[in-house]
Each structure stands twice: as structure tokens, then as C-alpha cells.
């Protein structure tokens, strides 16, 4: 058996070099790596991403915000962000537990590509784009195209996520996030809903983003509902047509039919909450 190595490079160039040679598994918070570890331990060397300069933190940029790939969820909780990010911050507080939030990273949540990833719906409502780097160069992919299926992402060998880029939400827009589970904490969602709602001076919705997780292989935005919300005060009845992008399954947490019913209710509450606030 080959000798496994533990790499903990301090800069991105070195990390991408190691990655380009293959046979390594990038690890940051370890919160998905260890639960998925096969019996007998890792088969690949480990590339620890947590010591790479520039991969941490949330910074304001010309056209919006940058979240470094290795930014931990607890950093998101503590960050000083406009109300449009309230949904993302609320989701951050519900990623596992404080222990998980202190270790797990934003990019890790995306790359793990669970249908129930807490971070994905709010990031979809914020129009997140994923910056990917390899030894060959960089590219940027919208989040809704980056996650391609259950446990599937658009990453080629040698590539890694280095940051998320989010446009500035409209002035005054408010985000909200709601996660439904069978217990109070430490729960994998039955469904979850994220919204960002902006309103004009008359209180009518002029910006609507609605995304739903755990109801389809990849969390989805609901464009028809977003369109229907525009110009209203939020009192829109959620219809089956609005929920057409969703394809919830029956599993141990709940039936597909229940999921659709609950999504409609939660969206209504989240939108009303964002409008009343």
C-alpha cells in the first residue's frame, strides 16, 4: 500500500500543486470527511485546506461579497452582514451544532452536495457564484450549476473551490430561513426554505428570491413563485405550479406529499415574516 501523507500547505499555489498530482482528498472542517471515512481509514492522502492564506473570512468587494472557501459557519454567524443575509446567518446557526459550526466550512457544505445541505437554499437566494481554481487557472460557476446532483458537483480532478461571490442584495432586502425537523436541534431537515424579499417604498415586493432544500436532489429556486410575488404584499397563495421544480421523496423523515404541503406553509410564513419585519 502506498504511504499516505498529510499535507497542510500555507498557500493556495502549493495546495493546487499537490491537488494536481492526484491521490489526495481535500479536507477542511472534517465534518463530512470523518463520518464518510471508510473502514480501515483513508485510501488517499489528506490535503488540509485550513492553513491556506486567503481562504478564510467574509469580505466586501466592489460588486458584492466574497466568502472564502474555508470560512467556518460560526464566522458567518458572527459576521456583520446586511439584512439580505439574514437567511444565510439563520442557516449558519442551524448547521449541526456549535461544534459543527466551529469546524464545518461554507464551501464544504456545497461540495458535499447533500440534498439537505443547510447552506445551499440561502446561498441560492443570494445569487452565489462559485470560484474554482486549479493549477491551470480559475473559473466561476453559478451555484445552481455547480451542484449537479446528489453528492455531485462540477469539479474536475485538480480543482477546488476557493471562494463564493455574492452580489450585494438590494437595499433594504431581508432574508429569512426556516428549517423543519422532528426535533429542536441537530436535525437533518424534512424541508427547508430560504427567501430574500425586497420591497418598494409602497411596501410592494420588488425583489423576490425563494429557494427550497430537501425536496429535490439539489435545492431549487422557485422562479414562478418569485415572479408571482412581485408587486404583491406577500399574500400570494403557493400553488402546485409554483412548486413544480420540486420532486420530494418519501423517506424516514417524512412523505413527499407532506414535504410539499409543509414547503407551501413555510414559504408563506417566511415571506410574511420578511414583509412584516
Amino acid at each position, binding site marked *: 500500500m502506498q504511504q499516505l501523507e498529510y499535507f497542510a500547505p500555507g498557500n493556495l499555489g502549493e495546495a493546487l500543486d499537490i491537488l494536481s498530482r492526484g491521490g489526495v482528498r481535500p479536507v477542511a472542517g472534517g465534518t463530512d470527511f470523518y463520518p464518510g*471515512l471508510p473502514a480501515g481509514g483513508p485510501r488517499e492522502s489528506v490535503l488540509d485546506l485550513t492553513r491556506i492564506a486567503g481562504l478564510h473570512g467574509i469580505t466586501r468587494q466592489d460588486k458584492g461579497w466574497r466568502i472564502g472557501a474555508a470560512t467556518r459557519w460560526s464566522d458567518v454567524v458572527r459576521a456583520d452582514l446586511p439584512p439580505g443575509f439574514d437567511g444565510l446567518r439563520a442557516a449558519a446557526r442551524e448547521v449541526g451544532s456549535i461544534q459543527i459550526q466551529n469546524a464545518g466550512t461554507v464551501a464544504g457544505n456545497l461540495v458535499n452536495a447533500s440534498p439537505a445541505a443547510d447552506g445551499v437554499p440561502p446561498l441560492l437566494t443570494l445569487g452565489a457564484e462559485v470560484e474554482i481554481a486549479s493549477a491551470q487557472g480559475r473559473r466561476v460557476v453559478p451555484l445552481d450549476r455547480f451542484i449537479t446532483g446528489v453528492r455531485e458537483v462540477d469539479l474536475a480532478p485538480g480543482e477546488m473551490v476557493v471562494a463564493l461571490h455574492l452580489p450585494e442584495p438590494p437595499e433594504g432586502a431581508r432574508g429569512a430561513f426556516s428549517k423543519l425537523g422532528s426535533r429542536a436541534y441537530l436535525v437533518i431537515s424534512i424541508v427547508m426554505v430560504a427567501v430574500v424579499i425586497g420591497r418598494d417604498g409602497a411596501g410592494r415586493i420588488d425583489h423576490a428570491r425563494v429557494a427550497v432544500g430537501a425536496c429535490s436532489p439539489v435545492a431549487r429556486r422557485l422562479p414562478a413563485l418569485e415572479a408571482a410575488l412581485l408587486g404583491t404584499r406577500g399574500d400570494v397563495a403557493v400553488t402546485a405550479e409554483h412548486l413544480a421544480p420540486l420532486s420530494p421523496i418519501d423517506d424516514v423523515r417524512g412523505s413527499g406529499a407532506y414535504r410539499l404541503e409543509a414547503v407551501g406553509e413555510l414559504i408563506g410564513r417566511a415571506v410574511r415574516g420578511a414583509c412584516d419585519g
Partner: protein
Amino acid sequence: MFRLNGRDVRVEPRVGERLSEALRERLGARDVKVGCNAGDCGACTVLVDRAPVCACLMPAQQAAGCEVETLAGLVAHEPLASDLARRFEGQGAAQCGICTPGMMVSAVALLREAPAPSEGQVMDALAGVLCRCTGYRKIVDAVMGRAPGAVADAEGHTGAAIEKLDGRAKVTGKERFGDDVAPVDALIIKVIRSPHPHARFTLGDLEGFAAREGVEAILTASDVPGVNLFGTIPGFVDQPVFAEGVVRFRGEAVAAVVGRADVMASFDPARFPVEWEVLPDVQGMADAMADGAPQLHPDRAGNVMCGGFVAHGDVGAALERAAVVAEGVFETGFVEHAYIEPEAGFAQVVDGRVEVYACTQAPVMDLDTLSEVLGMERARIRVVPTATGGGFGSKLDVSVQPYLAIAALKTGQPVRITYERGESMQSTTKRHPSRMHVRIGADAEGRISGLRFDGLFNTGAYASWGPTVANRVPVHASGPYAVGDYRAEAQGIHTHCPPSGAFRGFGVPQAAVAQESLFDELADRLGIDRLEFRMRNALANGVPTVCGQVFAQGVGIRACLEALRPAWESERAEAARINAGDGPVRRGVGVAAGWYGCGNTSLPNPSTIKAGVRADGRIVLHQGAADIGQGANTVIAQIFATALGVPVSRLDLVGGDTDVTPDAGKTSASRQTFVSGNAARLAGEALRAQILQRVNAGEEALIVPGADAFEIREGAGVHRLDLTALEPDAEGYVMRVAESYDPPTRPLDENGQGHPYAQFGYAAHLCVLDVDMRLGTVRPVRFVAAHDVGHAVNPLLIEGQVEGGIAQGMGMALMEEYLPGRTENLHDYLIPTIGDMPPVETLIIEEPDAHGPYGAKGLGEHVLIPTAPAILNAIRDATGVQMRRLPVTPARLRAAMGVAGHA
């Protein structure tokens, strides 16, 4: 390469090594507990640069340059943490203690930032740590610094709410659980398990495999020196240590591999040479009972393991004449014990004897089993219980013990094993799933007129404690009520599922769900208040039970129900006020009762308690009743100290080491306070008599123990008993006693008539909850729990039992369902978290029992029996829907509400 509790440490972990492993195995920090290795339970929480993280999810290399703090270091160095330790003790916030390090470390991180946190802050901060014993409320109280529940009491006799005598080790990280006792160089055992519920298998070239892998030994059925079977009930010892040719459930053991730690770190069981031929399996009871179903055991036709039966009066005629009859089929699923400590232990061979150190509820039963499995005389086996990180019934059965003993004997070296969480969940016992068809009649005045119970219980692949469930349920399915006309039958059905065994209540909690739900329906149809309906039917002194047993005293159910009345009235009024609004949340209030017979059903279950006095004045209590967190170490000592007449603080406790401590029976059936407590009372009285006799003092004399001598004061006179003048025996005791107690019972006849138990305990719970009518989510708001304990030996520990039992009952009602192959971890199998547990008001009722020590009754299982039905009744109160399948998940409740027209 990092700092651990203030000192520089250097380790060279392998790639993939978790920080938790490096801390425990390389740096000796075994105060860091591992419960799941998946970030689901939080027991391994440590602070890394002051932030709480799960050490099981952090590569050890990632700690380089960091400051790592664990419970032991925090308590030793930081006043905030040592204060918190005192508060945990004062609240009884540590029961078994396995989650305590994770809880306390998380709390220290919070308290450093927020010295006076709100309850919400405490919950947010501690939510990542699961506890299965306490129900969390006392932990919240401790972190918030609320007034302690414990009292300072110099004597600490029965009735005093003293702190646990063994609590200090639990709050300082010093407690040693099953995985904490092995030397670091012990060989590691890994069990090879079936991935299929039913399959034939053939083992391949084991010698070649062992050589290729570099392991020390491989164990299979052919290595079992004695009988390759274990079990708990005579006549039902049917589970192989290693399967022979065929497996009957997913997770069944077929072999074990024993190797050095470094070799086993990269061992992959998938490489093990075994060929499977998958066979048809049955998972549900209907399938198992169908014609042509595969048979699990040739001598158990139709996959029926056995049944239990109780009949009294004429149920058919009574139901015929009843004014109203309520009827329903109720179903419950597998419930996993989910103690935070996976099964673990260590064994070694010393002078030709095998010594097994493991977590357990029943050290002497473990020894009995090992004697059979090893084909070895009992004198050559020593079982030493470690601290047990929760049991709740499942650690009554052996798990790791046979593997440890066989491996130690085969290799001649120290060996250890710790189950992975998934392995623990796959292979150890569960609460029986049930399907219960129940009919109950009542006359126009609301008196029960006939109760018929027909229950099937999925006992899985092997018997374990299934026969006990089959026998207990018919005795208890009436609830604590006067039911003159009664017929109850229960059967255990084999399936290709993990064995169902003992879990707090032995089937009685399931039966109570059906009976108590139908009671509400009857009350409503008769227009009688639901609490009043129960009062009208409650058992009383002098009224026969369904077994025809009549208790002249100690029947406390009426007092329990009566104690709930103020809350019942005020909470119902409050609910009516809330429900007059038009929000999506409706409030419900539910009540339910329960009873439970303490000790074995019509079978002997003696306990023996031994004590001795050393020449230096030490009084040693050999306390063999396994303390799995419930508090036997404290309660038994309090009873003994009371009987002897010395302060409890004067006792030195010795645990259940089978070499030195006699059999106090198993920690099950709510029997330790009652049965071992009586043995302790007798032992205390005997030692007292011996001491008084030596100085010829009267019965009222006061014993004042000192070093080397006891003073015995009688009126104005003082006798001095010089202990150094007495001849010590081989154990160094100058005086010794050993006393036994076995509860008086009488066998049940063919109709289940007789005296199954010498005492019952009684309980009634009230639950207040909110239902989100549009989402189907249920949020308990408050519990009031009245328990007749006969005599409260330690009120603080009683509260702890009640709160913890309610948490488990709540889990069973609302979220817990073990599905073999699907929920074999602690994120798909959900147990309540700190945020799920509302306040509990415990009302202690003391109707003294004629047989209990100082009138005391058992409690451990009673605490869970009324909880689930009280929740179901509150849900029905809020929604009008009677839920007949547990758990009541939001999806199921919404579906039922849709059927009922509430959509």
C-alpha cells in the same frame, strides 16, 4: 506540536487519525469520551483555541499550534470550570456521566463569554451534546447557576436529597467507562458482521487471511470453548456468540479479528473472506406469521417464540353489557436505547483466570454466561464492571464480554473492544415493536366493563428478554385500574430483525399507549372528565388486580391522579384561552397513568449485600447493584447507613467486582432500590446488631464510628469498641455481614392469577403541548409527573429519574423509530435534544409499601410508562385526532389530520 491543558505535547498521528483518538490513546486524555465518531452526540467536545469542536471530526494534525482544553484540564485549572463541576453535582446533572465532559466543556465555552446566560443561550450552547439519562433540565439548571437541588445533610440517611456519592469522578473527567480501562497496547478486537438479515455463509481461508493482514488471531464459532449460545431466560438461550453457517439478522457476528492497534487501524472488514448466500427474510410480524414464511428457529412453529396470558372474570359478557366500547389497533416501532456509551471493555488473563472489565447492568449474569460460553468454572472468571454510560435495559445482555474473554484466552494477551455506533445499533437489543388490538368497555357511570388486549411483539431474531415482555404485558395491560373482567394475551414473534430485549418497561409502555388512549375516548363518549374517569377506576388498597392480587396497603395511584388535579384544571383553562384565538398553534393537555411491578415476575430474584469493618475503622459497603447512572451507589448506601445508624459519608464503597462482591442481581425491573435496598437494610441492621452486641448495648444506642474504634453511646454511657483488638479475617474485616433479600411472590396459574410482584409503583403524568396545526409539529410545553415511590430515599435522584424517563417517553412518542439498515446512526435515529425538553414538575407521592425498605418502591421504569400516552392524549386534545402509530412525526400527524378533515 500543540498545547494540551496548558502543557506542550507532541504526537505523530497517522493520516486520518482523529484528534479524539490522539488525545485518548497517545496522550492519556481519556476524559474525552467518544460516543458516535460522527459529530452527532458531542460527547467528545473539546475546546480548540477556546472554541468547542467535536474532537472526533478533527484531524489530529489540525491541532498543531493550537491550545486544546479538555474537561480534566479545565476543572483542574479554571475556577469557572471547578465551580461548574460543583453545580453539576449539586443539581444531579450527571447521571451516568458519559455526556458530562461534552456538556461541561461546551458550558465552559459559553460561560467564558456569558457568565450569566439565559436559558435560550444555554440551550444553543449545549445543543450539540446528547444526553440520554437526565432529560437535560438539571444540566440547564447547573449551567445557569440555579439553586441546587441537593441538600447538605450530615447523616445522608433515607429521605435526604444528598448529592450522588460517586458524582465527583463524573464531573472531573476521572470516571472510567468501558473504553477507558484498557492499556494502550492491548490488542484490538473487531467483529465481522453480516450485512444481510438472513443468509447462509461460508468462511474462506482464515489462516492465509490472518497472515496477509498481520493479525494475531481470528475467532469463529469453532473457537468457542463451551456452548456457543447466550441468552437471558432459561429455556430461551438461543443466540450464538458467532453464527454457525447461517445468520438471522443484519449485524449478526460471524467472526472476529484480533490484532495490534496499528494493524487494526487500517483493517477493512470488507476484505474478510466470507461468502454470503442471501436467503429470504421477514422483517414484519405479519410476514413472519404468514404461511410459508421462513422459520427462524425449528422448535418455534409459526415464528412464535412464546406468549403470556392473564384472564379474570368474563370479558366477553362485560363488553356485551358495556354502555360504550372503545376499540383500536395501536402500533409502535423499534426503539433504540441510544446510550451515549457504546458497548466497550477490556480483558486479560491473570494466573490462568480470565478477567473481563466492561460496562454492564448485570455483572453476575455476565459471569454466568461466560462460564457457559467458555466452558470454564466460575471461579476462574472475574467480571469487573466499569462505569456504565447508560444502559436502560440493553446492557443486561452480554455484548462484548464473550469476544473479550475468548480473545484474551486465545491470544494470552490483553485485549479490548469498543463497538462503533452503527455496530452497537445493529447488533444490540431494542424495544419491541408492537401491534396491539385493544377493546375496552365502560358502563354509563364510567366504570370499566371489560378490557381485552391482544398484542404481538416483534422479538427479532433471538429471544433475549422477549419472554419477559410476553409475560409482563398481560399482567400490566389493564393499567393501574380495577378491571374485573379482563383477558390479555401477548406473543413474541421472531423476525429477521435485531433481537428485541429489555428496554425500560419491558413492553408495558407500549401497552399503556393503547389502554390510556382508549380511556380518553371512553371518557369523552360518556361526557366524563378524563381525569375523573381515571379516578373512578383507579385501583385502591383492598381491590384486586387483574391477577387477583390484593394489596392491603401501598396502592398509590389515586394519590398520583389527585396530585395532578390542580395542574389539570389550570392548564385546561389556559388551553381553552389560547385555543379561542385563530393562530395556527393549538394547545393540548393530556393525562395518563401507569403502574409497574418491581422485580422479576413470579420468579426469585434475590440480592445480597455484604459489608465489613476494618480495624482502622473503615466501613466498607460491597455495593453490587450496578449503578448505570440511576443512583444505586447512593441509594443503596443511604439505606445501609440508615439501618446501621452512621453517616453515609462514613462508608467506603466497593463496586460489583465478582471476586469480592456478592450478587446484587441485575439492574432491571426497577428492583434495585426495592430488592437490593432491602438486602442493604438487612445488612445494615445485622452489622448494627453485631456492633451493639459486642458492647452489650441496647437497640437505641448511637454508633459513632472513629478510627481504630467505634464509640457506642447509650444515654449518658459510652462504650468503646476497640477494632484493633479484633481478629481480621482473610479480607481484613474485623466484623462482616452479608444479607440477602428475595421478594415474596407467588406463581401465576394458567390464567395468570397469582402474586406476580411483591410491590407495584404507580405514576400519572400530565403533558401540556402545542401543535402547529398546519405543519403537524408538536412542542411539549410542560410536564407534571406524580410518582408514588413509597418512600423517597433520595428526592433529588427521583427527580433525575423522572426527568430522564420523560425525555425517553417523549422520544418514543414523537421521534424515535429504529429501522434496521436505515437509521443506524444518531443523526437518522433521533433522540430528544436539550431544546426539546420542557420543564418538568415532579410530585413525589409516598404511600409506603409493606415490603419496601422503609416503605420504598422501585421507580426506574415507571417514569416512562405514562409519558407517551399523556403526549398522545394531549395531541388528541389539541387536534381531535387519536394517533395510533408511534412515533407521531409531523408527517404522520398531518396525514392523520387530513383524514380526519382538519387539513
